[in-house]
């Protein structure tokens, strides 16, 4: 099997790779969004704490 044949997926390449690509995109985006939410929460909490205890 050569790579060109593999990527063409018997003529269904656009559908197969479209599905796999979209899946990867959504799954990665979800993890990034979750990380972002956590970092935002930490940032808000840090601001809250510096407001409470002025030096």
């Amino acid at each position, binding site marked *: 099997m050569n790579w060109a044949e593999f990527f063409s*997926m018997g003529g269904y390449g656009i*559908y*197969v790779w479209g599905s796999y690509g979209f899946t990867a995109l959504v799954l990665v985006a979800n993890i990034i969004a979750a990380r972002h939410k*956590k970092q935002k929460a*930490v940032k808000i909490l840090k601001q809250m704490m510096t407001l409470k205890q002025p030096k």
Partner: protein
Amino acid sequence: MWFTKYAAPVIFYPIAGKFIPWLGGITLVLMLIGLYLGLFVAPTDYQQGESYRIIFVHVPSAWMSMFIYMVMAISGAIALAWKTKLSEILASACAPIGASFTLIALVSGSLWGKPMWGTYWAWDARLTSELILLFLYIGFMALEASIDDPRRASRAAAILALVGVINIPIIHFSVEWWNTLHQPASVSSISKVGKPSIHPSMLAPLFIMFIAAKFYFATAVLMRMRAIVLLRERHSHWVTGLEELKS
């Protein structure tokens, strides 16, 4: 009860933090094995050619879209009955992940439908009920976001999630109850000679991708829950005393 100890946000937060990297690592390894078996080892389908390989992302996503909905509705019900904070947080963290899997199931299904049926979309029972599932997830998130008090928001959203449970058996049985364009289940069906109608070399990657999706969900849901816990518990001593907030 013994498990109520783990249901306390103060206990949950550090334990979940320790589990996340491991769950994420297992997810990656399983996905790589599943992709290898699905793309290189599994043979070409005699009816659908190579296009059937979409099954390895489509079917696990469709299963997860329903499974996560049930987790969300059940934890919402527990939150309504016992007012447990962590079950409200779990339900809330499930919604965006479940919506993502629903979207993947719809898009990959549509990309499979085009070459096999000649159309990206049809208003058939299976497709329409899956689309309604996406709207239920979106409705859950919109309702939650529209109420300021997070605990009241969780309760209202939990009621919506419970009403929407009716859609789950409809999705599941739609291919049996109605004459749909969607093919019937391949995995659970048994052929006339008493063997599963799907070959083991195709079933193995499907099963591994399904387990990978479960681990992915566990990883993503714990990450989201930890962020929500921090915000909701921001006035507690254990949060303000966290090492990661100093500096």
